[in-house]
């Protein structure tokens, strides 16, 4: 893991409010695994002050790291203005990513909105195996055209809350339906999810109900990204039902969904 300035290769709009940024770093590329993230320093000055965490969306040609991001505030707005050729200070790869599924298991990837970012890297890593990738969005206008961002064919099932495209309802409904219809032996699948907390909670309860292993990638406010500041705490439920904190940046961002204390979500 290092912190260095890397050249931006492209930074383009994928759809309204969604951008794909690529920067050249053979080092990060060679060390990354799905679910890991990087901390990007948006500006050299103090505005904004803190780095911003982004999952690794894709690794191309063994040297280009791609981030898929949504403009939601000051930092991401500024990031979207960066041009190819500019240099960006990036620290990474950071955190513990997904544990890849056992050879026998089928992976089901469940994304909510921009939560598809780390799942795509996972899907790409598992590309020679049977996987099921599904993602939910508010309405058809919110759908992130994944294939366009990835520049390759990715089989993905879409759910929209308002039914304007794909499955009508939340992606958790789609998941439930898919499991009911296709999954018979309880330990033949593993779920990987990333998205809003409420969605992850629901995915977690679906997985628990069916005794399916489930890993979720969490978001949290972060200052250091290195396990030093304790700002990114997440409440964990131990097996004897005690709660304690772990750190999203170092112990995660990927956790077993069963370990998380969902009670306050």
């Amino acid at each position, binding site marked *: 893991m290092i912190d260095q300035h890397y050249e931006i290769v492209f930074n383009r709009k994928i759809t309204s409010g969604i951008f794909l940024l690529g920067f050249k770093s053979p080092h990060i590329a060679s060390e990354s695994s799905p679910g890991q993230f990087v901390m990007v320093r948006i500006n050299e000055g103090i505005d904004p002050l803190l*780095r911003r965490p982004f999952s690794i969306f894709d690794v191309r040609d063994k040297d280009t790291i791609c981030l898929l991001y949504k403009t939601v505030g000051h930092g991401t707005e500024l990031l979207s203005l960066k041009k190819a050729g500019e240099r960006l200070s990036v620290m990474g790869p950071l955190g513990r990513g997904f544990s890849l599924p056992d050879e026998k298991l089928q992976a089901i990837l469940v994304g909510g909105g921009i939560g598809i970012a780390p799942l795509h890297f996972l899907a790409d890593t598992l590309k020679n195996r049977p996987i099921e990738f599904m993602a939910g969005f508010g309405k058809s206008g919110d759908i992130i055209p994944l294939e366009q961002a990835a520049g390759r064919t990715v089989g993905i099932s879409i759910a929209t809350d308002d039914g304007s495209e794909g499955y009508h309802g939340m992606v958790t409904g789609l998941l439930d339906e898919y499991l009911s219809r296709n999954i018979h032996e309880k330990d033949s699948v593993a779920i990987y999810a990333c998205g809003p907390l409420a969605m992850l909670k629901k995915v977690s309860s679906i997985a628990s109900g069916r005794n399916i292993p489930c890993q979720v990638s969490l978001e949290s406010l972060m*200052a*250091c990204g290195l396990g*030093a500041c304790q700002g990114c705490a997440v409440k964990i439920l131990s097996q004897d039902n005690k709660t304690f904190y772990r750190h999203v940046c170092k112990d995660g961002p990927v956790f077993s969904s069963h370990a998380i204390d969902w009670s306050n979500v």
Partner: protein
Amino acid sequence: MNGNPDLRVKLGPLELKNPVMTASGTFGYGHEFEPFVDPELLGGIVLKGLSLKPMAGNPIPRIAETPGGMLNAIGLANIGIEEFIEKRLPRLKGLKTNVIVNIYGHSIDDYEELAKAFRGVEGVAALEVNISCPNVEMGGMIFGKDPAVSAKITEKVVKNTDKPVIVKLTPNVTDIRVLARAVEESGASVISLINTLAGMAIDIEHQRPKLANVSGGLSGPAIKPVALYQVWQAVNSVKIPVIGIGGIMDYRDALEFLIAGARAIQVGTANFVNPGATIEIIEGLKTYCLENGIDDINDIIGSLKKD
């Protein structure tokens, strides 16, 4: 001048190879920054605050970004001294740098016990006493705001330790000089300041405090002018050495504190923004000395001119 300026400074009984240290709570227990910083290159490392027993810390969210700064209400989450001494300290013992333990208690007795717990413990170069915590005995009032209580804590720690005692002051007081003098008179070897400024931020979308704890501590470049002023005031009211802390991002900021009279500095929030900040500051100070024909960094310390 042989081309290599002398960056060594003395903090009372402590000898530092250069005036640059890390600030408590921003550098974990020393190993988190391993890929970026070799601690042996630093004047010292100050570890995350430790209490007698492990503490879970505050509910989340614990941090919020503010203009040029950040708020934190970590709630002094820590592993407790027992686990620290058993599991973390052994990895730090061999380090050729000053490993400084930051301690805080919920009562005056806690501080006494903490001092005793580190008595004779090898590998700990000094104790930094954080007195900016809410006092459970006094209904949550901050210890460090009361000169008498601050003096009392200092006295207890000094009496029960074999190590140099650095007392870390809170800036949220009417007159920092009174506090500085109180802890000097009670036997502190060194004063460090500032801890964070009390602050708050509100999420206007949800009409909620951005921190679960409602208020928190402000750090980062935003507080630098306040820190520098209080450091300068402290330097001018005590004889013991002062460590300057607050918003230091680069060697130029470090120089401001040294010129104001700080004998050393600590780097906090900057570690998050630029994990190599401490090393770059040391390099920057070296280059500055070379370019300005300064053989000894001590010549800069307290060099502020006034008419």
